[in-house]
């Protein structure tokens, strides 16, 4: 595209760059502020002296976290959950997407399975019935209560299924002529050809497992079984709504002042680190992955 370099056009370009820079900084600032807070002196942070740079730089908060057994136990529960949950999500996505990517002629019954999946995706019994099912099965306080209810990521299955369908059929046909069965086709043809798409959905499921807190809150009755996000959630709002409803605004202000801002900020930071670590890898894939899933011809 050829652009005329008139003065007004350049001025417009400049304004656009400026606006975008401001937006980007606004996106980043809350995270930056938390980093600055976590490295600050406790008194300075509570006095509201932190704006851009840490005030009274020190590492006390991080030293406290290193000694905090509860924090590490919660971190461990989350890591375990991500590994088990992510693996199950991946296996089920791949293994279910393949037969569903056959058409109804190749696989009678395919449409019946499809409708079953869509029905389960759109309709649910709701919070209370699921809660009762989990407790009746005795899954409370086990990692399975966090992993199994969402073991089949139906949306991802449909996404990968659509991806498989877009691959050239000739490859599969050639393999079948050579005597390949479904497992061989899946492992040797379909999986190698769809690495980016599967990386996208797997990384999303990892992020999902890492970030969820609510199932940990309702299915774990013992705090030592809390995953990290639930642990932090309890820490940030470590006071029950019932108690809070009896407090006046002034009491609430006092409560918020008493919280250890720098320590909480450091905990938030550590909980963000895994996401920040996988983000660069994630970013490579997800743009194509999302476009693939949302807009289909």
């Amino acid at each position, binding site marked *: *595209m*050829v652009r005329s370099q008139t003065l007004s056009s350049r001025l*417009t*370009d400049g304004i*656009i*760059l400026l*606006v975008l820079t401001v*937006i*980007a900084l606004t*996106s980043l600032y*809350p*995270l930056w502020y*938390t980093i600055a807070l976590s490295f600050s002196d406790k008194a300075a942070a509570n006095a*509201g002296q932190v704006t851009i740079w840490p005030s009274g730089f020190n590492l006390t908060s991080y030293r406290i976290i290193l000694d905090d057994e509860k924090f590490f136990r919660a971190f461990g529960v989350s890591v375990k959950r991500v590994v088990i949950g992510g693996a199950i999500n991946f296996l089920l996505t791949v*293994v*279910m997407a*393949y*037969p569903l990517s*056959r058409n109804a002629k190749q*696989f009678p*019954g395919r449409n019946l*399975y499809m409708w079953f*999946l869509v029905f389960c995706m*759109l309709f*649910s019994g*709701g*919070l*209370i*019935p*699921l809660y*009762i099912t989990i407790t009746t099965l005795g899954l409370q306080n086990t990692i399975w209560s966090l992993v*199994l*209810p969402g*073991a089949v990521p139906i949306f991802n299955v449909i996404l990968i299924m659509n991806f498989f369908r877009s691959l050239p059929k000739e490859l599969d046909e050639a393999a079948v002529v050579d005597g390949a*069965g*479904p497992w061989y086709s899946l492992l040797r043809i379909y999986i190698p050809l769809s690495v980016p798409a599967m990386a996208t959905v797997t990384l999303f499921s990892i992020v999902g497992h890492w*970030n969820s*807190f*609510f199932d940990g809150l309702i299915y774990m009755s013992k705090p030592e079984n809390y995953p990290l*996000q639930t642990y*932090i*959630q309890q820490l*940030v709002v470590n006071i029950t*709504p019932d108690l809070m409803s009896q407090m006046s*605004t002034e009491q*609430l202000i006092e409560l*918020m*002042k008493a919280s250890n801002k720098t320590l*909480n900020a450091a905990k*938030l930071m550590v*909980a*963000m680190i895994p996401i920040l670590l996988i*983000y660069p890898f*994630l*970013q490579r894939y997800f*743009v194509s992955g*999302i476009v693939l899933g*949302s*807009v*289909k011809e």
Partner: protein
Amino acid sequence: MKDKRTMLQYHIMLSPGIILLFIFSIIPMFGIVMAFQDVVPGKKIWKQAWIGWDNFAFMLQIPDIKQVVINTVLIASMKIIAGIVVPVAFALLLHEVRLSWFKRTVQTIVYLPHFMSWVILAGIMVNILSLDGIINQIAGLFGADPVMFLASNKWFRHIIIWSDVWKEFGFGTIVYLAALTGINPSLYEAAEIDGANRLHKLRYITIPGIMPTIVLLTTLSLGNVLNAGFDQIFNLYNPLVYSSGDIIDTYVYRLGLVQMQYGLATAVGLLKSVVAIILIALSYRLAYKFANYRIF
């Protein structure tokens, strides 16, 4: 190619997932009968007393319920509108930039908040919005009195809506950016030869070019009118702002799991599910009609 061995393999491939879905999706659906029972916790589900539609009748009489529904629809609709307008505007701005390194950097930064949980972001927001937080400090420079944002019914909804926009706008642009790169560049060249300036090109080429995507995502978002965002509100609200921020999902949580009113909570949840599924079916039908969209 319909030999029996292959068919059997297909069924085996599907069976683990189907069994898990049966246990964790289908079985809980039978729990919906609790909406028609006077549930006493601890008692077996088939031994509970049947009370017909009483839970639903009682639900309509709860004084809070009207406000809860209003809050839900209001917050969700505002999020839907802002969640379309802001990403489209941002994508259009970004599309005007030709420095590819700048474009990439901005994109990388604005996508990031999407991957943070609401637990983390709520923790961050409590710091920023507190009485001595940065927002009140800046407002103080202009002579404003400090505001306790998260305890103020006047501000709470704004905070919910705008923090959601802040978290998701970058991610929302991805689809629009893809649509923008799909516009044929020769259209711009032709327009330039005809003497079109930037605004002309925006109005006659760029916006019509992404209109199908805008229409599609708008229709699909209709299904979310009852989803105001449980994780976000649950982590940010407190009893002082129930009147402006309590939504159906948080209300069901308190009614059901905190106050153990299983029957009533299931009834409220069921009503929400039924309305939601009608809206989703409607939005998919519209999306198919207007944009030829199908999920499979």
